[in-house]
């Protein structure tokens, strides 16, 4: 039998090699599924090799793009300037009103002795590469384990939630975007405080799952993080409802969501390195079915 096997290997070297490679690929899948440490080390090593090329080319492309933006598109500058001045005036007015509300809120918070839930420590990172495959949604950043980044940490942008850290190498990390089908974040509807899970839907959309049919939600409603998943602090903007589907039966309704961050034009992000402490009361309320703000199935 052994001799016959060797004969086949010599007679058909390419199919034998392909078969061997497929076996290795299946073993790697199995090791990844069991989250073995050796494979993570090998992944980090290869990521360290591949990422500097991404970083250099992203820098070169951005430099060329910025040059075009600065010098060739000056023609639109005057018009844009006028629009921006008008927008500044509006925003100043809006800002003043918000500042008033913020001060009032601060006073009330102190009175009620609310715990501060805003994260204390964040790391800024630059996006150096995007997902090479079409079917998944992730980006690579130029900060890694040596900068204090760990798997599962929340990643945000000024406009809202971006995703969470999926893979970490010493100097680089991969972020799983909220739009990836593997992503799940515990959330609430800002207006009604209804609980749901935001899952990625591919492209630039998410969907709201496990949202009770009895809850009144409408197009345009804002969705925030609930703070119950453990990774994301409470009150971060995730997106706005685009479409609501009640369906004919069942206890849940579905809604489609547009993320507040334009994930196709992401350049810089903030990684929350210190998650806020959750109150035990909130932890108890966490539903059993919820994947609770982590990559699914892991």
């Amino acid at each position, binding site marked *: 039998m052994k001799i016959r096997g060797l004969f086949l290997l010599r007679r058909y*070297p*390419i*199919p034998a*090699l*392909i078969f061997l*490679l*497929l076996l*290795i*690929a*299946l073993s*790697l*899948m199995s090791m*990844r*599924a069991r989250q073995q440490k050796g494979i993570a080390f090998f*992944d980090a090593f*290869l*990521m360290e090799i*591949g990422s500097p*090329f*991404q970083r250099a*080319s*992203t820098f070169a*492309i951005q430099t060329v*793009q910025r040059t075009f933006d600065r010098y060739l598109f000056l023609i639109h500058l005057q018009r844009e300037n006028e629009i921006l001045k008008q927008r500044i005036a509006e925003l100043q007015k809006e800002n003043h009103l918000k500042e008033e509300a913020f001060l009032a809120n601060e006073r009330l918070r102190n009175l009620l002795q609310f715990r501060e839930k805003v994260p204390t420590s964040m790391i800024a990172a630059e*996006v*150096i*590469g*995007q*997902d*090479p*495959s*079409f*079917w*998944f*949604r*992730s980006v*690579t950043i130029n900060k890694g384990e040596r900068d204090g980044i760990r798997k599962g940490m929340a990643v945000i942008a000024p406009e809202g939630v971006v995703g969470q850290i*999926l*893979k970490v190498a010493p100097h680089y990390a*991969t972020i*799983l*975007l909220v739009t*990836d*089908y*593997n992503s799940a974040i515990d959330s609430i509807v800002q207006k009604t405080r209804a609980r749901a899970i935001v*899952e990625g*839907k*591919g*492209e*630039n*959309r998410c*969907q709201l*799952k496990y949202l009770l049919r009895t809850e009144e939600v409408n197009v345009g409603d804002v969705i925030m993080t609930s703070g119950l998943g453990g990774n994301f602090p409470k009150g971060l903007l995730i997106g706005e409802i685009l479409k609501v589907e009640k369906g004919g039966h069942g206890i849940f309704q*579905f809604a489609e969501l547009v993320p507040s961050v334009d994930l*196709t034009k992401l350049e810089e992000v903030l990684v929350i390195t210190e998650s806020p402490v959750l109150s035990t009361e909130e932890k108890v309320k966490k539903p059993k079915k919820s994947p609770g703000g982590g*990559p*699914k*199935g*892991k």
Partner: protein
Amino acid sequence: MKRIVFFVFLGVVVLTLQTALLRFFPIQRLRPDFMLIFTLYLGFSSPPILGAILAFFMGYFVDLFSGNTFGLYTFSRPILFYGAYLFKSKFYMEGFLSHFIFVFLAAFLDGALILMFITLLSPEPLLGFYPSFLLSLFPQSIVTALITPLLFALFEKGSILFAKKNGASVQERG
């Protein structure tokens, strides 16, 4: 040895273009898969053992920089490489149309393999994922197939230039 260096260098360039340059592609919903085109080119033009190993590592790198946690491309890319290797000897594979049709079918098969694995490995049915996946599979395969003749021509040009340079240095040495 120098041929190996050429194909490895080409692989690095393609990976970099896929992850960095295509970020600035105007239509984000559809992006050509340069890595897939390169894998098929390996099947047509590279020495088979080198090509198979490179296809495996190209798949590994796609998995590494993507949101896919299991390593689906490490599995699918050697299959596609072998498909291209078999096709090379059995069919006439020159010209725009044959390249277009072959790459379109390969991209479609790649998508189908990924979908099959996602379905098998996911702990729960991904009902929200399937419609967008199936809607994108066809146009995505067309975009990849459309850009193939251009990339194949560039790879071929690079290969000829490299061979010429290599030949010249051999001649210089005597």
